[in-house]
């Protein structure tokens, strides 16, 4: 109950007109940077950081976290409208969000995405409020083997998800792993796969891959299909937003399950991207009609969005309590904390309770403000689809290339994005899934580091993955997730055979 009292105090710190205005400004800026692929939250936060040097820490962090929420929302917008994920964590939203937009249901898809995202974020913040002390201790139990087990779980839940053939999924994942290993390897300190080519030294950013594979690849396909952008006829009415909101409670199972997955991945080091992929996979697996997924199923939007935001907000806890940033954005904010004279770490909660609880209270308020602001922008964004492709197409290309350039201010990245665009087109034509590639790029190198650190810990023995209750449980869940589709396939084949023999 102590926490609740502190939170109320936090509200009194955060709830001023000045702060609410900062939140709205932050959210709007965030939507702007989130909508531009490549610009993204980390860049937005680092651009704003110098402005905050002269502010007091509470106002500064409120501005930056609001920008972060706004960027997360903005990232989902482009995923749904143009199949271009603004952030890696909104890749999974494209699977069903974009088909919905194509069917003229953009308003519905956007509203579902924003509302469920708000729900997930709330779930994450409530967890922080109630369990902050416990989570900080729990997170200390995680070392490299546990990290690897969490990544393994994510991969396991995604392989054999159906859709494409499992072999093609593995090929795609393999390409992703190879791309992720380009650049400096932090375990050996050697440079890999750069062919002494300077531009590859920093590795290949998954943002470039995402911009190319999804954005440009999608445009090439659209052009081939006759330069028309479906969904042009979509009617945009404010009442549709409200009607969608009324439908949301029907998906309460998905909301709860996805929040739990998101929170879990947020406080363990999985992070928002892994959370959204895993949540999508679980939604499809537990659905009564999995065949609908990928063709515009609302649950396919709700599941990844809820988990993404639940993970995003609960990941703030390890950052504050342990001083480990859960994401690139969190890393920039941590740098900010230090410049404002705060030391993130276990004692931040006791040293600066006004700051910590002010921040947590601002997460409640910021999310409410963010949901209201973005819902108000839905009709605006949805009407973008009514603009003829001949106009919007070239604009998207320009935005993609600008986005690719802004990731690291390298012109080489523009060519790389173009190359990825061609790869994305070929993948689609040959029916190879793109998602496993992106997943492998985002968490592949972390999984590799964790695995090799574990091997250094155990001096080469795999038994380290069964060495304590925590890691064994995680690995066991992973193995079960990996084997389930196989069991299902065998069962189906057996049933098929008996069916045939009876005929």
């Amino acid at each position: 109950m102590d926490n609740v009292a502190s939170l109320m105090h936090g509200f009194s710190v955060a709830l001023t007109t000045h702060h609410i205005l900062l939140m709205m400004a932050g959210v709007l800026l965030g939507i702007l940077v989130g909508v531009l692929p490549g610009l993204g939250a980390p860049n937005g936060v680092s651009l704003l950081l110098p402005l905050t040097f002269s502010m007091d820490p509470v106002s500064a962090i409120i501005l930056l976290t609001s920008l972060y929420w706004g960027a997360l929302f903005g990232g989902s917008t482009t995923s749904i409208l143009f199949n271009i994920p603004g952030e890696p964590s909104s890749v999974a939203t494209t699977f069903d969000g974009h088909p919905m937009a194509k069917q003229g249901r953009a308003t519905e898809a956007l509203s579902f995405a924003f509302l469920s995202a708000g729900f997930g974020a709330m779930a994450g913040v409530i967890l922080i409020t109630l369990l902050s002390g416990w989570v900080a201790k729990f997170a200390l139990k995680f070392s490299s083997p546990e990290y690897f087990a969490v990544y393994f779980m994510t991969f396991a839940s995604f392989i054999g998800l159906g859709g494409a053939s499992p072999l093609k999924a593995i090929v795609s994942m393999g390409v992703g792993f190879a791309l992720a290993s380009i650049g400096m390897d932090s375990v050996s300190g050697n440079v890999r796969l750069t062919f002494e080519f300077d531009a590859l030294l920093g590795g290949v950013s998954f943002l470039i891959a995402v911009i190319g594979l999804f954005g440009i690849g999608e445009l090439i396909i659209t052009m081939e299909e006759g330069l028309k952008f479906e969904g042009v006829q979509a009617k945009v009415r404010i009442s549709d937003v409200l009607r969608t909101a009324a439908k949301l409670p029907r998906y309460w199972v998905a909301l709860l399950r996805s929040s739990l997955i998101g929170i879990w991945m947020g406080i363990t080091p999985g992070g928002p991207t892994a959370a959204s992929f895993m949540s999508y996979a679980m939604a499809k697996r537990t659905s009564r009609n999995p065949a609908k997924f990928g063709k515009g199923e609302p649950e396919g939007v709700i599941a990844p969005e809820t988990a993404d935001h639940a993970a995003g907000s609960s990941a703030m806890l390890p950052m504050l309590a342990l001083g480990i940033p859960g994401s690139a954005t969190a890393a920039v904010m941590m740098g900010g904390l230090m410049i404002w004279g705060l030391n993130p770490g276990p004692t931040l909660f006791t040293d600066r309770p006004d700051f910590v609880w002010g921040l947590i209270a601002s997460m409640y308020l910021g999310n409410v403000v963010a949901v209201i602001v973005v819902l108000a922008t839905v009709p605006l964004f949805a009407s973008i689809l009514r603009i003829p492709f001949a106009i919007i197409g070239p604009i998207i290309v320009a935005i993609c290339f600008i986005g690719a350039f802004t990731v690291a201010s390298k012109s080489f990245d523009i060519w790389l994005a173009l190359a990825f665009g061609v790869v994305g087109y070929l993948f689609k034509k040959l029916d190879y899934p793109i998602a496993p590639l992106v997943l492998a790029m985002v968490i592949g190198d972390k999984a590799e580091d964790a695995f090799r650190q574990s091997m250094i810990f155990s001096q080469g023995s795999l038994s380290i993955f069964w060495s304590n209750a925590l890691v064994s449980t995680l690995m066991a869940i992973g193995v079960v997730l990996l084997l389930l589709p196989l069991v299902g396939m065998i069962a189906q084949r057996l049933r098929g055979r008996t069916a045939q023999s009876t005929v």
Partner: protein
Amino acid sequence: MKNLCIAAGLAAASVSFAGAAQAWQPTKPVEFVVTSGPGGGTDNFARVIQSIITKNKLFDQPIVVVNKGGGSGAEGYVYGRQNKSDPHRVIFGTNNAYLLPYVAKLGYKYSDLTPVAALALDEFIIWVNGSAPYNDAKSYIEAVKAKPGTFKMAGSQSKDTDQTLTAMIQLATGAKWIYVPFQGGGAAAVQLAGAHVDSNTNNPNENVGQWKAGQVKPLCVFSPVRLAKSDPVFEGKGWGDIQTCKEAGLPLETFQMPRTVWLPADVPADAVTFYADIMEKVSKTPEWQEFVSRTAQTGRFMKGKEFADFVAKDDAANAKVFEAEGWVVK
């Protein structure tokens, strides 16, 4: 080609000649190139300087900070090579500027950079878990020597300062650790707080949060003199109460990492002077003093010959370890 070179040389000479009459000033926005990712030690270093310059209006042009931390920071130095003779790109780093080319083929040489200044020395401390039975460095080293190859030392990256220091301690004392490289000092701090490893050699600032909570404790600092006195951090002990490693009886005295500022090669000499003067002004501001003492670094401004001598000495000491460990790439 030769003519062109001469022409370019003449042009450069005439520029610096004109500069002698009127000191060099930036004429467009200045880029601060950070050789680490956002939130890293070098990132904080550069951004604090940015905020001090902006606040005190030390020069008129706006400053843009860009992170080029790929390849352990090599990306930023390669960028310096690519922008040869451009005095509007200021590169921030550590001793990795001259040490990285030893251990990996990275597409730049130390000669691609022009030294400007160093502003501080970051310190290294041996830390153990808060509930470990050791209270001084000697007894910990003895325990490691008794069971070679079972104790784990966490550090940031591979073949970087932490592993170099670990190798130095091993060579000097005969102790032997399993070195586990993590992404950064923050991760190494948390792994030690969770008792997954036995020790780390983090900079003060990387472990201060865990020390405050009593999850880790410092044994000794690799500095010739004790750190500056500070407010107590944990149980009445502050930075100034930590023994130096020499006091603790280790046959190894100094290991410090300079926080450095560079320009690309072939920039006008006046530009180097200009930035060195700016950095000197920065190092005298109260904001900088506050940053240095908060992060428990040692403030020490070096430029010109003093800096060059420091680099030569540090370079030789590190190169010896790289040779001994077989890390040098041919």
